[in-house]
């Protein structure tokens, strides 16, 4: 079932930890998930703390043996011990946080060490390291010990380390966690650049805007299971649409609002500073009720109407809570 179109094919992938108390059942961290990642795309794995994102990434990156199920990465079965070293040459991982570097070595020395571990020929190392340092904008700090780096610098040298073997698949586990907006933005544009260059990127994040900005496709995990899958739009439209309607009128429409409330709609009117009235109504099926409701407000002199579509965050929260 090797399919060159896909960088990753997971089928029924499962991982259990423990049991830590003999005789008890182990903890099912990832519970039979299936998904496919196309070559060159940015694929998101979203989900609350403990959902199984890191566990999934570890299994796909040969760092953790699956309990059952299938995972083919670059056409190779990750469970087959013979593939592990071949696969490790072609992938890399960045985990968010400050661990994983030699603090008493400079940034450059860290990169040199890992270049050797990846068997990068000595003659190519200098130029490669220089280009990676400039990619992550650490040329000036290259010869300072990592222990003196700020968090953002550590994360950037991490990313440089992960690119040392020009990986075909790059796994990024919360790459922008704890970083300031400017550095995060820099990292996001770097991710896009890598993806444009043909690298397949697997990204986990708790930031919805990041997923929305970067991911071509994604899965949402909750308690080890997939509760949502597809593009951002697929995911938004997979929940029963919840939109909110905002109507501003010249005159007070409280009577209408009260009658809507009696119909069990969530509606509130408030008086604005400019002597106008704002009414917010949450609708389950906006398309149908929209014009009918607008008509009710017409006698109060409508000055503007707006519809707020559900965000990825709305969809995420709905899916994750349905999964409980």
């Amino acid at each position, binding site marked *: 079932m090797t399919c060159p179109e896909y960088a990753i094919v997971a089928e029924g992938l499962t*991982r259990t*930890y423990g049991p830590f108390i003999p005789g008890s059942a182990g903890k099912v961290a990832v519970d039979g998930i299936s998904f496919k990642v196309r070559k060159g795309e940015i694929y998101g794995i979203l989900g609350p703390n403990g959902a199984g994102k890191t*566990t999934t990434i*570890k299994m796909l*990156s*040969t*760092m*953790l*043996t699956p309990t059952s199920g299938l995972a083919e990465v670059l056409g190779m079965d990750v469970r087959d*011990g013979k593939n592990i*070293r*071949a696969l*490790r*040459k072609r992938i*890399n*991982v960045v*985990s968010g*946080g400050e*661990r*994983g*570097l*030699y*603090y*008493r*070595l400079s940034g450059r*020395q860290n990169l*040199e*060490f*890992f270049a*050797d*571990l*990846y*068997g990068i020929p000595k003659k190519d190392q200098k130029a490669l390291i220089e280009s990676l340092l400039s990619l992550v904008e650490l040329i000036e700090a290259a010869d300072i*010990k990592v222990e003196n780096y700020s968090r953002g610098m550590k994360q950037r040298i991490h990313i440089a*380390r992960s690119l040392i073997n020009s990986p075909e698949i790059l796994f990024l586990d919360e790459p922008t966690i704890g970083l300031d907006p400017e550095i995060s933005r820099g990292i996001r544009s770097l991710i896009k650049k890598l993806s444009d260059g043909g690298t397949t990127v697997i990204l986990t994040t708790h930031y919805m805007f990041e997923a929305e900005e970067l991911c071509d496709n994604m899965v949402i995990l909750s308690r080890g299971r997939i509760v949502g899958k597809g593009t951002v739009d697929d995911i938004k439209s997979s929940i029963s649409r919840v939109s909110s309607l905002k109507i501003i009128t010249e005159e007070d429409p409280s009577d209408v609002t009260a009658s809507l409330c009696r119909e069990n709609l969530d509606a509130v009117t408030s008086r604005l500073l400019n002597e106008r009235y704002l009414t917010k109504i949450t609708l389950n099926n906006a398309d149908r009720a929209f014009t009918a409701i607008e008509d009710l407000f017409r006698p109060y002199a409508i000055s503007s109407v707006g519809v707020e579509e559900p965000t990825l965050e709305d969809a995420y929260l709905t899916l994750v809570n349905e999964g409980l």
Partner: protein
Amino acid sequence: MNPRAVTASFKQQAIQFMADPQWIIPSIVSPFLFTMVMLYIHQDVTGPVVLQAVLGGGVLGMWANTIFASSFTISYDRMNGTFESMLLSPTKIFDILIGRSIWNAFIGLVNALLVFAIAEMIFRTGVSLANPIGFFFILALTLMSLASFGMLISTAFVFSRMGRFFSSVAEYPIYVISGALVPISALPVGLQHISYLLAPSWGVDAMRYAAFEGYGSMMGTSLLTDIIMMVMLSIAVLIIAYFIMNKAERAILSAGSATRY
């Protein structure tokens, strides 16, 4: 073996060490105390006793250093999160450890020489070695045998953070069993058998051959046998370490324990 990875980890260990060499101190202080105690017990600071004591101290120093460095090396990586980055690379952990062990052995040598030098400065015994060149050659070989032991200890840390238990248990018995402290013949027979299985015992014996004129082997063998035994046992230990290490690598992937420390 992957020479690139070996050199890289040798260099990494060296830089790391130079940035913070304070941990050489415990492995000098306790062997040195041992040397002092030996000398005061014997109340004789001339000739063979001094040499015996200083030699014992030097070997203890090398062993303490080996234990310390080979335990520290992987626990540091576990604590630092670099163990995962190492594991993620296509290089075998075993190759990385070889490089580090060579550096550690080198520091062990410096350590032993420091113990010798300090003892000489304090007691001003002026003892001379029967065969200085042979002595240094054997010292180097003994160091290699200690390093291969160190590899075995490191595997315990690759397996689990519980390696610390193993290494603290291994430290003192080896002093006794290897004959560095007291002659092997003074040990209970059961322990003597274990002594014969330890490369460092043969190394200590061989060093004494080279140090003392007319030395009667504590192992009851010849110098050549000592050397051959030491080399063969060291190779055997290395092979065992290699297999354990590969098993350990697989075990941590299935237990998911690489991040624990």
